[in-house]
């Protein structure tokens, strides 16, 4: 589990690996802010049914990269490296937001939480997105125990919008391997989601 509790910072217990190599906490915080604001932008575009709502994770992460890279002082080794980490940030962000939202729903109108939730705008089809993403997260954690590489590929591609070629380069494997991994991982995850759903 990456998230200790709804109130803790995402980066408090981020596991080692690429994140640790990426540089200081400062950089991560910065990345987190960028990811947050990009996601915010995307979310509000969708909500307003804006034409720009066609934004995909790919454009999202690319734009975040352009902004951060353009701001200099970024210690990311490469755009790919960045995208990989941005994908993680996106995932963390979405999951913790969804988790918090889920928790509040369950708590109903608890006194501490009157400011949030209870009734959502009717226009938004309730539930499936938030619950689904939480289940996907759990399934992805499960997959990581079986095949860390496949979990990594799914995370990069799904949350970071990395192309097959980019993912291959990043993980140092052939594109064919990425394609094969992606296919089986996706089938596996779909099965997991269906099982629970």
């Amino acid at each position: 589990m990456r998230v200790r509790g709804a109130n803790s910072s995402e980066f408090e217990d981020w596991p080692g690996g690429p994140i640790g190599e990426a540089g200081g906490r400062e950089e991560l915080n910065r990345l987190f802010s960028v990811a947050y604001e990009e996601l915010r932008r995307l979310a509000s575009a969708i909500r307003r049914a804006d034409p720009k709502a066609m934004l995909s994770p790919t454009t999202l992460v690319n734009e975040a990269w352009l902004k951060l890279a353009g701001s200099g002082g970024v210690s990311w080794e490469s755009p790919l490296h960045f995208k990989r980490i941005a994908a993680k940030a996106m995932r963390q962000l979405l999951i913790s937001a969804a988790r918090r939202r889920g928790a509040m729903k369950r708590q109903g109108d608890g006194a501490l939480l009157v400011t949030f939730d209870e009734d959502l705008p009717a226009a938004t089809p309730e539930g499936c997105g938030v619950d689904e993403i939480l289940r996907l997260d759990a399934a992805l954690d499960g997959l990581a125990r079986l095949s860390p590489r496949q979990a990594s590929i799914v995370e990069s591609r799904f949350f970071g919008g990395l192309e097959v070629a980019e993912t291959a380069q990043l993980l140092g494997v052939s594109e064919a391997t990425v394609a094969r991994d992606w296919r089986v991982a996706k089938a596996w995850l779909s099965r997991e989601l269906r099982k629970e759903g």
Partner: protein
Amino acid sequence: MDPMRYGRLQELFHDAVDLEGEARERFLASVEDGLRAELMELLAEDERAVPLLGKDLGAVAAEALEDIPSGLMAQAFGPYRLEKLLGEGGMGLVFLARRDDLGSVAAIKILRDSWLSPSRRERFLAEQRTLAELRHPAIASLYDADTLADGTPWFAMEFVEGAPITDHCEARKCGLQERLALFRRVCEAVQHAHRHLIIHRDLKPSNILVSGAGEVKLLDFGIAKQLAATEDRTKTGLHLMTPAYAAPEQLRGEATGIYTDMYCLGVILYQLLTAKLPEAGVAPSAARHVAASRAAWSELDVLCQTAMHAEPARRYGSVEALLRDLDHFRAGEPLEARPDNWSYRAGKFVGRNRSWLAIAAAVAAMVVFYTVRLREARNEAVAEAARSQRMMRFVLNLFEGGDRYAGPAKDLRVVTLVDRGVDEARALSGDPEAQTELFRTLGDVQRKLGNFEKADTLLRDALEQRRNARGDRHPDYAESLLDLALLRADQARFEDAERLAREGVDLIRRAHPAGHPAIAGALEALGKVLEERGSYEKAIGVMDEAVALRTGSRETTQADLAASLAGLANVHFYAGHYKESEALNRRVLSIHKQVYGPKHPAVAEDLVNLGAIQQDTGNYVEAEKYQREALAITRPFYGEDHPRTAAGLTLVARSLIMQKKLDESAALLNQALAIRERAFGPMHPQVASTLNEVGNVALLQERYAESEAAFKRVVAIYRAAYQGKHYLISIGLSNQASVYMAQKDFARAEPLLREAMVMYRQTLAPTHVNVGIGRIKLGRVLLRLKRHGEAKVETQTGFDILSKQTNPAVSWLNNARKDLAEEDAALRK
């Protein structure tokens, strides 16, 4: 499922997935029972090929990240209740709120999803603190702040109902003067922030609202930075700001400073003038939008383009400077920045040869003079117009070699520059008053350049003209006497200097009622002369009187008083009265802190002086503390790459050398060196002076190759800069010799020392302390080369010179004594 089983399952999946029909059936039949069911499920999922999630990421985000938390509107925010959403930004939401009890309104800003990351929370609170610090009619003020029960922070601020400044001007079809008046107001607000050491960093029209009544309000300090905070390159906040207004250094992720806001102000001015965002290479006049004369446009181009110059160092140095030029423009006076920031350019070229800062100050004084002079004479209508034209031409000719567009020739030396100025000034014979002023100013520049004869002619001419025009009892004449007195002191003609200064003081005393500030000014000049003469006690008496006058006068500004006190502090310092000097410097410091705030360069200068006292009295740890404190002001104020920052680094490094913290010292010196190389080019004397320190530290560290290389460069630079003849070349040579002496290569040291001595003889008095040290060193070399007779002559002469100094260098004297004993012993044999 375990990884092994999953691995096996995968293999089977890949084998099966491309098989069809019977082939697949056969394959499945061959699969072990335990995995078959799972394999079939996977294959079924693969065939369905549904996306992992029913929605794309954006839709999930839309759901997970709420728009407006629904219970929010019902919450009480202190005495306020939310009415409607005004806007949203990266950080949070802004609502219009109303006070239940008073009915007054406010804007309430709420940090959205505050639980997500501590850094966002910190940034939000930083904005709140900034607003609390800034109280200015053109800055939206903070009313209240608190946290909701769930931990969401919020603050209430002044609600500004208005339009972005650009929209306001368009809607009202404002004319040029109105636009400039509004812009001036914006500048004042930014100036206020800068005085509190806060850089806004996100100045743009949408953050500058103008109310219906025409009131300007600056908003959104969301990514503002405390200048005092150590420069943190990772926090430029770029990803949060609007690229069109980002200064080039922000885009490059480099350090930001007040110059960053200067750039944004330039962009806003450009927009006010053209109703467009700036395009590279398009002057505002080419995209004009408001009506103004051709001449006015040419001035506005300069104003605008100076403010938004790509190089931070060539922008207006402060909002004050920009405001001054705005006012010059509105009063029809020449701009200080014209053309292409010539004062910067002049400073740069003038600085080639001698103390960069002193000369830049002299040039700045010239600029101020023209401006003041022109403003004073403004009412003289036609005559004045002719004069300002002549003045402008004068300045242009002086610094541009007569051709503004060609720019100054690369080899244009300051001497040439000022000589040309003198020719120009002489040609101004139709305007004796202006001519006299020019003679005074140019004479002062020549004096600071060390061209005493030329200064002499100019200052005497000015004196003569004043005597003729005003008589020899007029305070203007007295002023000229004081100018000449300071020159005489520099010429080491101390008796003349003192006589002239006293005459000047007497005249001024007679011309003004007792207690007049002009008397204090004259006394300060006399004090300076006495100080140079070495009559410290007399100087102290005179300076004391000046300080008393300043203290007693109602007209004295705190800054004048501080300047007077600082002069007295200096005399005490030179007289070795460190306690008095320290107390005075502390007083100056507290005045400066009060007048300019705690982080002003004037404060830094006082700290440097206090540090120098500690350094001189051997308290190197204290010295380091002061110098570091000064640097902490200088560095963020001027920026990472400014020569002043380099000077500050050097002072810290010096305090470290004496504490034997050589590695740290070397690191700081190398930083200073890099800055100076960038600012002045690799062959500038300023670079040589830092290299000299670098070489000394390397020598102490016994890194001889590095030390030698540094001193060799020092010599090469000084040779080039001073056409082969200057005592600084000798210092470089003598230091290079020290490297060989440390390695016991005395034969190699000798010719260097000999050359150094020859040049000392041509450039310094024979009794100068450097000559003494040089001779003692040469004596040591000859002693080691066993040429005892020659050695003794050098050592003895050196010893005699040093022992007559007021502050003899004890370690050199001791060395000389030891060598003399050895030499005598050898000679007796």
